[in-house]
């Protein structure tokens, strides 16, 4: 969760480059108000400014269907096709290396 701040910086720095960042809270559903409040407070605490999604049934069946550990990161192309997966926490530099590698090898 501490990486939210660096991810927010990355989301800002990569604006207009063809890259976007979305968060997905795996244990928060749209109707679970308590979990929603917890997620919101964590976002506020760690300075997350990018969009974060809740887990619906269709999310569970598509994005989360093969995820067996968190934090996990998935990269999708403009058509919604999965192109890369990465697991684990990363520093800002680690995120940048990962993003740049995917951006240059898949675009």
């Amino acid at each position, binding site marked *: *969760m501490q990486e939210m701040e660096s991810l927010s910086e990355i989301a800002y720095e990569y604006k207009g480059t063809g890259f976007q960042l979305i968060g997905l809270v795996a244990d928060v559903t749209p109707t679970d108000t308590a979990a929603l409040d917890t*997620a919101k407070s964590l976002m506020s605490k760690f300075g997350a400014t990018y*969009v974060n999604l809740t887990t*619906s049934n*269709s999310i569970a069946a*598509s*994005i989360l269907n093969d*995820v067996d550990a968190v934090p996990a990161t998935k990269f*999708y192309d*403009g058509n919604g096709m999965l192109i890369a997966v990465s697991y684990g926490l990363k520093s800002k530099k680690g995120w940048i290396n990962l993003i740049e590698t995917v951006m240059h090898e898949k675009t």
Partner: protein
Amino acid sequence: MKHNELSKRIIARSLSGLMAAMLLCTVGCSSQKADTFVEITADGGAVPVEGDTFISIEGFATPDPIVTPAPTPEATPEPTKRPQSSLTDKPKESSEKAPEKKNETTPAPSTPEPEKKTEGKTPYADSYSKVGVAYEGQSDGISFDTTSLSGERVSDRVFSKADITMVNIWTTT
């Protein structure tokens, strides 16, 4: 004797009148539009006396108006081309090369943009370290529909907003 004096007077007046007529003709008698009778007196406008001569001047007309020639517009001078000699002109060389260099360097910030489109459009394109990534070979795009934490509806169409979308999955616990 008296007859001679009268003859001289007539001749003198006639000559002066003739000269006056010639002078008027020089002013303008090219077009003959009107007949004008001018009374010429030898003593400059004194009351005519018996024997004064009236001379008719034919063709006294209004002189042609003087046509003022329209000023011809001067051709716009061609822009002075930067003479090649200025490159050899050493004192000017330093002063003129500076702006040229400026022109070369000014578009520099805009020129990398097209390069970025192909290679380095990302902010850390030149400084990142390549890492191993598990690439997937999915053939079909995923489909979902959900809401964001702020309550906005989001679907898989969000992927079309970018070439690459990174979904960071995390939990509250």
